[in-house]
């Protein structure tokens, strides 16, 4: 009885975005590149944030981590992390959070590490900033962290320089830096994109272990829907600065409600497309001005487009249990007229 109650306890939301807007400097003033998105990351889960280039997925996670480029600003909405709105924090509070409770790993492992500093020292720096450990304890923790992320012979490898590591090992070292201060949220921004698929699988499995065993939550940012289908609990699909569909992975992949999600799945040879004679490609490209779109943002490329889509923007709404989609015809699975047929 009690067990059933515990199992059914509501899952805690670790991070919630409410109407997040990010603006980038343009030719005539700021223009919005992330246009009011809502998103939740649950405790001990991986959220796959998927989109093509220009979708705003990287801006979104950089806004969460507080590391937007100079000139790029959060211009609206809330970033709620464990109940606090991160936008209300002072700069100093914000800094201690980034790299402390929120760790982030990027694609380019060579740029993420200092080439003239030993790997161990770079991990230790994170411990120095975010923990009260003494020198000896820090050294021990560095070795422990390298072992945790699967670097063989961690005692001696801690003394190596980044160029002495392979790409996969550097990415592991970066994860060690990111989790050094025992964060609650780990963001991997295309962190495995440049790696071989064999090494990618190893790194993704490591992130899954960190989530399952150490209780982290993770946001896995990628352009590859096939990878998300393999490792994430929830998925959010971004297009032109908006979330067009989100929900539990199993549900979204077996029954996508937005034509863009369906098209992305079809275009991916890894998701059962390889047998086909032709891949169902998505015609055209993302609109260059994502801010001033009349009607549905995907209308210009949507194979299902109807007159209504050109005039009226569809709202992101819950169309099935926990599954949200922004298509006028989402209730019909993104096929206009499907319910009458």
């Amino acid at each position, binding site marked *: 009885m009690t067990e059933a109650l515990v199992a059914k306890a509501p899952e805690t939301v670790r991070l919630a975005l409410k109407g997040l807007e990010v603006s980038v400097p343009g030719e005539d003033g700021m223009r919005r590149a992330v246009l009011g998105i809502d998103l939740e990351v649950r405790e001990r889960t*991986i959220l796959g944030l998927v989109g*093509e*280039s220009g979708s705003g997925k990287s801006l979104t996670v950089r806004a969460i981590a507080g590391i937007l480029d100079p000139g790029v600003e959060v211009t609206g909405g809330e970033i709620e992390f464990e109940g606090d709105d991160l936008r209300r924090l002072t700069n100093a509070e914000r800094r201690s959070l980034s790299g402390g409770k929120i760790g982030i790993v990027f694609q380019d492992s060579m740029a993420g590490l200092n080439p003239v500093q030993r790997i161990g020292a770079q991990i230790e720096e994170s411990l120095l900033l975010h923990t009260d450990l003494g020198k000896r304890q820090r050294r021990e923790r560095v070795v422990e962290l390298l072992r945790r992320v699967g670097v*063989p012979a961690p005692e001696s490898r801690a003394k190596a320089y980044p160029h002495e590591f*392979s*790409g*996969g*090992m550097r990415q592991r070292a970066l994860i060690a830096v990111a989790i050094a201060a025992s964060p609650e949220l780990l963001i991997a921004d295309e962190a495995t994109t440049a790696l*071989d*698929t*064999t*090494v*990618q*699988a*190893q790194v*993704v*499995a490591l992130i*899954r*272990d960190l989530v399952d065993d150490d209780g982290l939550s993770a946001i896995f940012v990628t*352009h*590859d*829907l*096939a*990878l998300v*289908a*393999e*490792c*994430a*609990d929830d998925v959010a699909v971004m297009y032109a600065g908006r979330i067009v569909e989100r929900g539990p*992975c*199993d549900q979204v*992949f*077996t029954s996508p409600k937005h034509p863009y999600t369906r*098209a*992305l799945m*079809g*275009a*991916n*040879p*890894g*998701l*059962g*497309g*390889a047998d*086909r*004679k*032709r*891949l*169902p*490609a*998505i*015609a055209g*490209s993302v609109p260059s001005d994502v801010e001033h779109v009349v009607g549905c943002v995907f209308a210009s490329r949507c194979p299902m487009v109807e007159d209504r889509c050109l005039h009226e923007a569809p709202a992101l709404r819950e169309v099935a249990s926990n599954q949200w989609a922004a298509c006028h015809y989402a209730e019909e699975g993104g096929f206009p007229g499907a319910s009458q047929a």
Partner: protein
Amino acid sequence: MPAKLEVTDLRKTFRVHEGGRRRGLQALAGVDLSIAAGTTLGVVGESGCGKSTLARTIMFLEQADSGKITLDGVDLLSLSNRDRKSRSRRIQMVFQDPYSSLNSRLRIRDIMMEPFSANPDIEPDPAARTKIVADLMEKVSLPQHVLDWYPSQLSGGQRQRVGIARALVLEPEVLVCDEAVSALDVSVQAQVLNLLRDLQDEMNLSVLFISHDVSVVEFMAQDITVMYLGRVVETAHAKEVVRAPLHPYTHGLLEASPGRHALNNEKRPRVELRGDPPSPLDPPSGCPFRTRCPRAQDLCAEIPPPLAPIEGVPLRQVACHFPLEVS
């Protein structure tokens, strides 16, 4: 079916300096492959397996140390430079990076005309050249006015279409694509893959399609060759390789291909291959794969397994002392 392009025991060693010592990096340690006319052979493998060196050697961008590159039965490596040039232009290449492979200071028209300037004897009539270029633009679905543009005005997908059109100017019979869609977004990648398949059908091209992405190769190719540390470890019809790989490395590579275990209960990719491939500067004794192989035995450290045909299965070859079962 007769082979259009055949590569036999192709070898290439680079001289490198490491720690003050000169050493040999064996990028191609005797590669054999064959492409039937009008078909696509996919080459897969991790970075450092020699697949790009293979492409560059076939294109004569690198000089092979030894071996044969046979086009329609004629070994190009045995020809004089002049004879080779007139034959080897029947092999053309599409490069990976649509940003750096087009000269940013030239208009698309001039980029498309370049192959003619390099081969002035091919089509001396300027009007005919203009016609060929215009037709190719149509073939790759680019509007004619793009000819007046510079590469910077084009999207990544459009640039790769230009790269493909340029490779077709001299009417090649063999097209070498080295990671030709890797830099593109999924939706654009699908467009370019479809285009390549259409062009192949229309022009009866033989294609060598190199990629690290097994699922892309599976979509494109009839046959697949798997490379590891400069060697071929398995060759077979694509469907057979994917359905029942024989080499443990092929199996591991397939397992790691994203999407093969979509929506699994553990929510984690299967990890069969651990670590990275060993350095080609210091390859293991015996079988190059033995240091990562779950099936390795003592024999594997002693004797390198030869690439041998599998009885009763046409085309199929595997280099392993203890291959997986043929099912």
